[in-house]
């Protein structure tokens, strides 16, 4: 018995909750997968939004004038006149009249070369490109152009693509809503899983909890132990999930995807939003886990005396 020189052992205090990494491993995996899915959903929603933005601005920055063939009139000349009138409008950058050859070329994939009789009446197009500033300001009025064309006595119709633009915007909104809903669902699932795991962990460690309780530990003290543990777990699995989500979206972007699929796939644009999202994901996962674990443990402890 060494009674003479009592010296406390060096180093810090041991962790009050025993490490149970073996038990935590499946939870780590589940949390990482959930964070991964959440990141993919967020990146997808973001991708859809960016995609829709580009498409709608493309659509809105141009419009077309359709010149209907009318007997006894020179459609080509009418198209040139229409282009002239369009050029004269404020906010129009360029107006190009497409010739009959152009119209024939457009039809050739369906009707073949040289199968069209020369006197077949064909509608012609005038492509009008708007000044981007006007588009952004939304001051260009297709109706005014239509009125001028009517005044000139042209059989012309202005199509400003707004039908298409609004359809694209609707689709983008749907994709975004879907993405955010997925995000919310995944976050809820993560919180529930962590709450479940925290309760299980509490039950598995009831000996420790009893000892702490009888030593006079407050509920907050015990809940804090679990909170710290699950915060770290959330942080780690969050980081893992976020890294994988980043890798996947880079792979998708590098690999290229068909345009119709690209709408819902996460696209890596290497912009600050993505970096911030992926950097915040582990933190958010950690916080979600911590709060969820704390609430679960505190509610369980309240049931004990």
């Amino acid at each position, binding site marked *: *018995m060494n009674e003479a*020189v009592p010296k406390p052992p060096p180093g810090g205090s041991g962790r009050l909750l*025993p490490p149970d990494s073996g038990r935590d491993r499946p939870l780590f995996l589940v949390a990482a997968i959930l964070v991964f899915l959440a990141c993919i959903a967020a990146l997808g929603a973001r991708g859809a939004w960016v995609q829709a933005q580009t498409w709608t601005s493309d659509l809105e920055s141009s419009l077309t004038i359709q010149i209907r063939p009318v007997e006894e009139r020179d459609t080509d000349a009418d198209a040139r006149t229409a282009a002239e009138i369009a050029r004269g409008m404020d906010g129009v950058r360029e107006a190009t009249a497409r010739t009959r050859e152009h119209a024939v070329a457009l039809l050739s994939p369906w009707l073949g070369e040289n199968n069209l009789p020369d006197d077949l009446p064909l509608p012609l197009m005038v492509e009008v490109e708007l000044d981007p500033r006007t588009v952004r300001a939304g001051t260009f009025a297709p109706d005014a152009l239509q009125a001028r064309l009517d005044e000139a006595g042209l059989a012309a119709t202005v199509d400003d693509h707004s039908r298409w633009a609004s359809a694209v915007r609707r689709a983008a909104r749907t994709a975004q809503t879907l993405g955010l809903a997925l995000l919310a669902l995944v976050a809820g699932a993560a919180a529930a899983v962590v709450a479940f795991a925290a309760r299980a962990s509490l039950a598995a460690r009831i000996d420790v909890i009893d*000892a702490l309780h009888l*030593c*006079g530990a407050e*509920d907050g003290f015990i809940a804090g132990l679990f909170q710290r543990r699950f915060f770290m777990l959330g942080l780690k699995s969050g980081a893992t999930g976020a890294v994988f989500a980043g890798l996947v979206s880079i792979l998708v972007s590098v690999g290229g995807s068909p345009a119709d699929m690209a709408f819902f796939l996460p696209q890596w644009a290497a912009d600050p939003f993505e970096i911030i999202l992926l950097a915040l994901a582990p933190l958010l996962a950690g916080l979600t886990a911590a709060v969820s674990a704390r609430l679960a443990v505190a509610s369980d402890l*309240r049931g004990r*005396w």
Partner: protein
Amino acid sequence: MTASPHSDPEPVVRFDNVGMRYGRGPEILRDLSFDLPRGSFQFLTGPSGAGKTSLLKLIYLSAKPSRGLVSFFGRDAATLPRKELPDLRRRIGVVFQEFRLLNHLSVFDNVALPLRVAGRKRSDYAEDVAELLAWVGLGNRMTALPPTLSGGEQQRVAIARAVVGQPEILIADEPTGNVDPEMGMRLLRLFAELNKLGTTIVIATHDLQLVRMVDAPVMTLSNGHLHIRPPRSQRQREAEAREAEGREALDAVSRGDAGKAGDGDTEARDE
């Protein structure tokens, strides 16, 4: 000092008609009424299954009575707000029969646990804990983990943990069950020392030799009922008093004056 019903105006623990059952089972403790006066020392004995551990659980706030009143430091346990329990528990040290050490923590950390949960800093208590461990003969095992210790060593760790916070009440369930008689004596001296410093002590034991070594009341549980035998010195005094009374009565009778006898102490309730 006795553990007789409500003799102390301000006991640390008071039981009043306490009954206890688990779930819908039979009542295992019945009509317990006693006080643990401040600074008292008592043994608790009784056959296994008599409810000793259940009674201790009531005293260390691990169970609630099914009926009756248990009060600590003058406060009814049943109406105590939950958030005041930790503070109350810190004033009670417990040595569990099965020790309940945390196997993943070192001996030092186990003993320091009550101080740690009370929010004290390691630098504040490290010396005290080390000194206490040396005192119970574990000065060279401070970094050991409990599973590597013998039963006796674990028991001493449990005792050190129970007393490190200088509790006002110390409850020990078979604290000498796993140690040799010499260490048993040493631990008993530790308890006596604490008692001298004002700690109220309850020791549950089967060891009659231990009981005989201290002049203290003995609470005996059997069939859920509690009997309290006053300390030996009191019983002797009472016996002497009775003897004296008897002599006086005899003298009186012999003097032809029998009316004054019989107003002695009626509080002694021996079994």
